């Protein structure tokens, strides 16, 4: 494969760029990649890490910058009170300092996560057993509600009624604190 930038040298770096859900294939030779600032070369040019790439993507992204400017306290830099990581630092290194950073930067994260995970920003996989109980139920109810919506749209009312009953039974098991609509 030939570098798409200079059309001369063989492409050495191949990656998919996802910006606002739009994917672009990028194939560049090392020289053009460096010149374009698409990534930071590490170890004297022998490779690059996804984190550097991430930092690059986030830095050039106008939505992140705009969001930062729009916050009420413009001068105040968002900082995690557990590990002292700031948002600009996170953008620079592409890694969080601790689990609490997710809470600290929660307002800033959805666009970042969406960009990295093809539009997704919320977990729908395994849940640890120790905190499982009510979350499991809540997730189950959420999934069933989605299913119900689809069935109603498809006018599958008989199946929908069954799902509705199932939701009611499950909701009775939920502790009252975690009930309530979205």
């Amino acid at each position, binding site marked *: *494969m030939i570098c798409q930038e200079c059309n001369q040298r*063989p*492409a*050495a770096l*191949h990656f*998919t760029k996802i910006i606002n859900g739009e*994917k672009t*294939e990028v194939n560049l030779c090392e020289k053009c990649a460096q010149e374009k600032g698409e990534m930071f070369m590490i170890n004297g040019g022998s490779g690059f890490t*996804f*984190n550097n790439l*991430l930092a690059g993507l986030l830095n050039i992204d106008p939505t992140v910058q705009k969001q930062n400017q729009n916050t009420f306290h413009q001068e105040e830099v968002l900082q995690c009170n*557990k*590990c002292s*990581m700031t948002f600009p630092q996170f953008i620079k*290194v*592409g*890694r*969080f*300092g*601790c*689990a609490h950073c*997710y*809470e600290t930067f*929660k307002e800033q*994260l959805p666009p*970042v*996560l969406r960009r*990295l*995970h*093809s*539009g*997704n*920003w*919320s*977990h*729908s*996989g*395994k*849940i*640890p*057993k*120790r*905190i499982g109980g009510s*979350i499991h139920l809540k997730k189950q109810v959420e999934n069933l509600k989605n299913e119900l919506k689809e069935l109603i749209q498809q006018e599958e009312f008989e199946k929908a009624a069954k799902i509705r009953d199932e939701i009611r039974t499950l909701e009775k098991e939920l502790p009252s604190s975690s009930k309530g609509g979205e």
Partner: protein
Amino acid sequence: MSLERFINQAVSSWMSEEGPDSDIVLSSRIRLARNFENYKFPTLFSHEEAQSIILKMEEILRESNFTKFGQMELLKIDDIQPLQKRVLVEKHLISPNLAEDSPYGAVLLTENEEVSIMINEEDHIRIQCLFPGLQLTEALEAANEVDDWLESHIHFGFDEKHGYLTSCPTNVGTGLRASVMMHLPGLMLTQQINRIIPAINQLGLVVRGIYGEGSEALGNIFQISNQITLGKSEEDICRDLKGVVSQLISQERSAREALRKTSNIQLEDRVFRSYGVLSNCRIIETKEAAKCLSDVRLGIDMGYIDHLPKNILNELMILTQPGFLQQYAGGHLRANERDIRRAALIRERIKMESDKR
């Protein structure tokens, strides 16, 4: 040390056993990233935190009897000789990062090396399960069991919205990276691969080869893995990957059949030329070895060669890397010495099988 004994000691179960679709899929791997709650991530953690994570893991290992995957042993990276570290990296049991840049790193290994748990790499815990052939579901099940075991002793960082909290936002959610190593000489020879890779990328999966000149993957081996870890369940991620891999398997098989029909003699010639090189060479570089091994492996799969085991490609790709060559030689080797040793090891290995007949 005799070659046979060396191989028996060096080869992990994923290399020596055959799994489903092992004519095309070399191995399936699942990795789960986990972190201790209330500890800084390895990028920022203190010496004390790092130590206490290792201590905790040692304690868990001592006190619980989780032997589903065999006895486990904890090795601290600092206590491992440089050459031995390199061998662990070449066997894919630890990452180059853990070997080189993690002063507080450690690894928990099972006897058969099917399960390895890296400690204090980019995340506090990385569970890895490596199985031969296409066994993503099985590998995921195993990883889940290891995860459940650890989870009964450790509170992992988790929140309802983001799932398992990881050091890098590219892993958050399931913390799952599922990858499959495939041998795709047919798609390379018929030049279909360049059309296929972009299509796979569109599906949120990543294809990696070891790129040399002309973007050719070393030994026609490609690794395909998921990119997305958030918003999809572990099972869905594996199912999607498996779907694409199954497609690739059938395309690779038809490419091989097409080659058999249109250029059987040319293909046979290519296979036996490479066999000739491997069984007679005196000096061979990694790249040529990888190319020839790929040809020979294809020859085995297509029935041209019937006296060599299928797994010879996986095994020799691993055994002819610098760490292993030096371990076999019993000391440091310069690059040109390695090329000579590599040739000798391959020759001996092939002869060993021929003698068995």
